[in-house]
């Protein structure tokens, strides 16, 4: 265990906790806790949306995939970049307007208000979906954090898991959304710096990009071809003879579809100060995502040239590159960036899950007249409760990437089509929305368990998304027309000028 690395790591963690404490004093209402009182400027909204989106996957998973398969792995990066853009372009503004118009602060809240559902069915079904999928997502993040602590400091896995969990819970518990958004902002910058810094240094030492391509070409020239899938077999990079796979490529690109349904990212759109800030936030987010995905890809490529024999765990390439090249002080900062990536995703997910418990169960079913303060405390308690469950799940082990991919598909299919159609299709009905959520979630859950379907090798998000979309359209058309009130509200939001700025009530 290196003292310099521990000191850098600790300073970073204390800084994050400090932000949590500072914002604790500024969190008075439930809207403050979950949306920061809709007060985020374009920079903070954009960076926190991106940092919440990109988990440890960006620094561990993607470089690992590129290290194994070469440039063919970049299809997933292309899918994600395009998905990020489309989400900001088509969903952000309308969702921000609609959720303010109907005064919603969570996704289930929005569904209920959008379709004027007095039965609470839509709210409860979507809240259950959120809690279930995020539990696995958060658990995967806790495992990733523990693996990082374990590898970086050589400490026991369980101890690493507890330390990480305590830090994450502490500041999500204290500050809520504002803390999470501010720390996400800091973490987003730290992640990007690490992502650009590490491969650049290696590429310069290899003699620029020409040198990089030549070094990789000597290992296997097909690693440089996006159309040729390469894999590691018997400690060698071997080109897959079946060559270009349509289903494989569609599955990788389809990750981008998942964006439209991720509650932890969508809430960032709802929290932006004004719709006028969205075009600027969109550009910031898109530039961030393009730079970070290209850099993560370059880390994987550089690693091919650095490690002669394929590594046992390809996902550790970033950690190994950092540990071998940099002095312990800088290594500490760069490794903290991995923790930043993991934490900035888990904290947002915990917050959304706790909002589902407080707003969608506690307030709706148990205590209709609960005060704002009471709801903030219920949310804080549920952050702890959900974290404990996530840690228990994490202790049971499991493959991190499979869990993340599963949760991503679950949200993308269950909520993606519902979000898009609810914002753009006036004729959509409550039953249509219900059918969409259930069809999307069930398709994802069942697809992997049905052998014939699973053997196709298609990412379950694709059929889930398509079937949910079809279910919404068919059920809505069979259903009777939405009420006049719903249609009028839709027209008002769609035609709203959007120039009206939200005035955050500081006196609350």
């Amino acid at each position, binding site marked *: 265990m290196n003292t310099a690395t521990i000191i850098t790591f600790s300073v970073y963690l204390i800084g994050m906790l400090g932000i949590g404490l500072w914002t604790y004093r500024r969190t008075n209402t439930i809207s403050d806790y979950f949306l920061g009182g809709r007060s985020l400027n374009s920079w903070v909204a954009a960076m926190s949306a991106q940092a919440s989106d990109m988990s440890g996957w960006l620094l561990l998973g993607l470089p690992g995939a590129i290290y194994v398969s070469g440039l063919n792995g970049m299809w997933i990066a292309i899918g994600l970049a395009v998905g990020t853009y489309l989400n900001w372009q088509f969903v952000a503004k309308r969702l921000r307007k609609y959720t303010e118009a109907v005064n919603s602060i969570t996704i289930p809240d929005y569904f209920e208000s959008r379709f004027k559902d007095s039965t609470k069915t839509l709210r409860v079904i979507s809240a259950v979906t959120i809690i279930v999928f995020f539990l696995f997502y958060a658990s995967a993040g806790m495992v990733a954090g523990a693996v990082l602590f374990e590898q970086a400091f050589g400490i026991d896995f369980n101890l690493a898991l507890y330390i990480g969990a305590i830090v994450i819970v502490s500041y999500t518990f204290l500050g809520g959304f504002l803390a999470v958004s501010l720390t996400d902002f800091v973490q987003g910058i730290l992640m990007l710096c690490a992502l650009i810094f590490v491969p650049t240094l290696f590429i310069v030492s290899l003699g620029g990009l020409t040198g990089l391509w030549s070094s990789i070409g*000597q290992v296997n020239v097909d690693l440089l071809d996006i159309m040729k899938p390469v894999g590691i077999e018997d400690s060698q990079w071997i080109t897959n003879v079946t060559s270009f796979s349509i289903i494989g490529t569609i599955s990788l690109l389809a990750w981008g579809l998942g964006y439209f349904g991720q509650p932890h990212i969508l809430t960032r759109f709802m929290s932006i100060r004004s719709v006028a800030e969205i075009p600027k936030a*969109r550009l910031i987010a898109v530039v961030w995502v393009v730079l970070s995905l290209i850099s993560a890809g370059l880390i994987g490529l550089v690693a091919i040239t650095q490690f002669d024999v394929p590594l046992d765990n390809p996902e550790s390439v970033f950690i190994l590159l950092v540990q071998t090249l940099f002095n312990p002080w800088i290594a500490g900062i760069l490794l903290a960036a991995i923790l930043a990536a993991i934490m900035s995703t888990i904290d947002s997910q915990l917050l959304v899950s706790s909002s589902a418990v407080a707003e969608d169960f506690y307030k709706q079913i148990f205590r209709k007249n609960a005060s704002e303060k009471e709801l903030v405390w219920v949310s804080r308690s549920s952050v702890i409760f959900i974290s404990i469950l996530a840690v228990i799940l994490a202790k049971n082990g499991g493959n991190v990437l499979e869990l993340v991919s599963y949760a991503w598909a679950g949200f993308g299919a269950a909520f993606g089509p519902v979000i898009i159609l609810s914002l753009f299709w006036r004729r959509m009905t409550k039953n249509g929305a219900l059918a969409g959520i259930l069809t999307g979630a069930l398709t994802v859950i069942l697809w992997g368990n049905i052998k014939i379907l699973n053997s196709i090798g298609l990412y379950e998000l694709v059929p889930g998304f398509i079937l949910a979309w079809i279910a919404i359209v068919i059920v809505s058309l069979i259903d009777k027309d939405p009420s006049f009130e719903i249609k009028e509200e839709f027209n008002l939001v769609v035609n709203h000028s959007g120039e009206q700025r939200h005035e955050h009530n500081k006196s609350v």
Partner: protein
Amino acid sequence: MDYSLSFTTWICIFIPFIGIISLSVLTLIFEKE
């Protein structure tokens, strides 16, 4: 021996990336609401 990226690889990677950045810049300039 020198190696480089094929034309298809460059196009597949850079068109989507440059495309979305360009569209974001254009909408930032021209999107009026």
